């Protein structure tokens, strides 16, 4: 071949295999099914993937460095931008880490508010994933049905949080505003409404024979694979690993509610799909119980930190269950107003890292299905 160097750094360092008949192709960063700006360099034999390598960093914003330059309160809005689909879980992860470090008690009502809004946010994240995944498989309509339901959630969450997507609602020691009656009434109506919609989704999409053929047996992840790559969330639970941070590392008041962790053994894309749908139902269950038992009281602790507050020195690790898996925040403080080190463990990052191994030898169309079933949010992966 000619000596002219083509491609960029990553393509040049992606050494092709020994065969002459393969095709090296850039899937992304502008590709319809990489959900944003993920890029995957793929070596294809026909339509079979021989090898692939994800290339990240196209929306990398160095949130961890921002954490070292901003004060604790100033860093709060960053969380909604890490994973914009389940922003409240990240809110919670950051607030929880700081509260754990400084030993701040969260009032009872604030705990309930956090559970209610986070679970609602989880449903909206799963709904969006559901639509987007079916879109990856080539059906256009379900995503708009999902958006219709998600719209109600966003309208609801707008009432207490004031924003629709990148929420910044939690504060150290509570939340920024109390839940209004309009929100509580709306939520009360929403639970049976969504329950009524779910059977329709099942009839329309889940039982569709083409969808089943595209998901069943595709992208099999063994529990061992999940463990080696540290996959968590629906990806791990779809592979038979009974692991949910809300149960395994209990935080807040999740132990008061009666709910289950859905686990399926199959480990294929279909089981991940079903897990997420089942999680919507479980979240509804939690919301229903929390709505029934929400106490009155303060929505933020009396001695909640002021903006220029500095926590004691020390370090802590706090994890919450996000829609995509285990969100972890490792926080090191040197006792000043800015954190010494913030490490954000993004679940999507770990889940995606197993893709290169899982996609070996599958068809390109199946790779799209696997990629979709991982539920990627690229800003969260790149941070």
């Amino acid at each position, binding site marked *: 071949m000619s000596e002219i160097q083509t491609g960029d750094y990553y393509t040049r360092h992606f050494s092709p295999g020994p065969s002459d008949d393969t095709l090296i192709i850039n899937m992304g960063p502008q590709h319809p099914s990489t959900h944003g700006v993920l890029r995957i360099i793929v070596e294809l034999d026909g339509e079979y993937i021989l090898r692939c390598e994800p290339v990240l960093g196209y929306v990398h914003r160095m949130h961890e460095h921002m954490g070292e330059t901003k004060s604790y309160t100033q860093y709060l809005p960053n969380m909604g931008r890490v994973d914009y689909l389940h922003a409240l879980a990240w809110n919670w992860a950051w607030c929880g880490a700081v509260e754990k470090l400084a030993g701040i008690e969260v009032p009872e009502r604030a705990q309930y508010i956090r559970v209610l809004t986070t679970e609602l946010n989880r449903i909206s994240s799963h709904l969006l994933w559901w639509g987007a995944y079916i879109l990856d498989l080539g059906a256009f309509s379900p995503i708009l049905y999902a958006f219709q339901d998600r719209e109600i959630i966003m309208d609801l969450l707008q009432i207490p949080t004031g924003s629709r997507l990148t929420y910044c609602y939690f504060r150290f020691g509570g939340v920024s505003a109390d839940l209004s009656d309009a929100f509580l009434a709306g939520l009360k109506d929403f639970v049976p409404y969504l329950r009524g919609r779910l059977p329709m989704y099942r009839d329309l999409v889940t039982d569709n024979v083409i969808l089943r053929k595209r998901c069943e047996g595709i992208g099999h992840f063994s529990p061992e694979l999940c463990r080696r790559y540290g996959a968590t969330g629906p990806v791990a639970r779809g592979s038979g690993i009974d692991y949910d941070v809300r149960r395994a590392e209990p935080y807040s008041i999740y132990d008061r509610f009666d709910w289950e962790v859905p686990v399926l053994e199959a480990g294929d894309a279909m089981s991940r799909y079903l897990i997420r749908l089942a999680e919507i139902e479980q979240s509804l269950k939690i919301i229903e119980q929390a709505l029934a038992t929400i106490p009155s009281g303060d929505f933020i602790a009396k001695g909640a930190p002021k903006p220029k507050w500095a926590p004691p020195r020390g370090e802590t690790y706090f994890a919450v269950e996000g829609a995509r898996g285990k969100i972890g925040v490792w926080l090191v403080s040197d006792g000043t107003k800015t954190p010494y080190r913030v490490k954000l463990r993004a679940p999507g990052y770990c889940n995606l890292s197993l893709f290169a191994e899982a996609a070996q030898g599958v068809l390109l*169309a199946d790779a799209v299905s696997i990629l979709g079933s991982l539920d990627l949010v690229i800003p969260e992966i790149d941070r």
Partner: protein
Amino acid sequence: MLQTEIIVPAELVRLVLGIVALAAFVGANAIVLVWLERKVAGHIQRRPGPFEVGPYGLLQTAADAAKLIGKQLTMPAGADAFLFWLAPILAFLPVFVLFMPIPFGENLYSLDMDLGLVLILAYAGFGVLSLCLAGWSSHNKWGLLGAARAVSQSVAYEIPLLLAVLAIAFMTGSFNLQAITEGQGPWPWQWNVAVQPLAFFIYFACALAETNRAPFDLPEAESELTAGFHTEYSGMGFGLFFLAEYANMIVVSSVATVLFLGGWQGPVFSGWWWFLAKVYALILAMMWFRWTYPRVRFDQLLNLNWKWFIPLGLANLLVTVAVV
């Protein structure tokens, strides 16, 4: 000076008039269909669809056409210019030939040909050719993959399509579309679909595959291949592929109407309106499928063809021959 007597045969006049009329028909229909597709998609997806431009958004397509025409035509570096621009033209031109033998009414056809059906089948092959050329010449790997898919898909699906069509031809004993129409009665139970439901099913499935409509839209498969064979086309280059897709939809629906649904005959007031109604019903069904089903995978598509459609088509043909 040589005196030549110019004889213009009536058949030629009919042909020229027919082609002009067909060009208008195809153009008008494509515009209506694009609008219809968006409206159908909109209503399936619980949104209004286009409704800003003109009444009910009727002028939306015109606005889009103006936009497409106004856009710069770009070509990637390293592409084969001749083939690159030949492909969209080749996609659209044969469409006129395909329409010629179709009888829209008792006397409404532009070419009365004994081999009308064969003519349509023969020229339908050019569509695939244009897809291949487009994918290959655009110097794009996604385009190449799309072209490879287009080839194997259409080669595979042409066989059961032919088998289904042959069953009807055997029954009628003619390739003349007018004769096939007249071989059926005006009432639905006299149509070929009542006698040959399997052939109709196979034909319609294959027609979806041949026109690259969902769930068989693998050559473009935008979630896998970005846009497949027409990834690199801009402006009217893309527009011609788009028009050809809709024109092909009308063609396959028209042929299905003639072969299986009694053509222009209806229980009352037989005429071209019946023909159009049937064609549009089929097209609506195609749109309905597209906006409902996920896309099948490539090997599933081929397996479906080789393991089900071809054996079924052959069996159907054998039974038909035995009965006839």
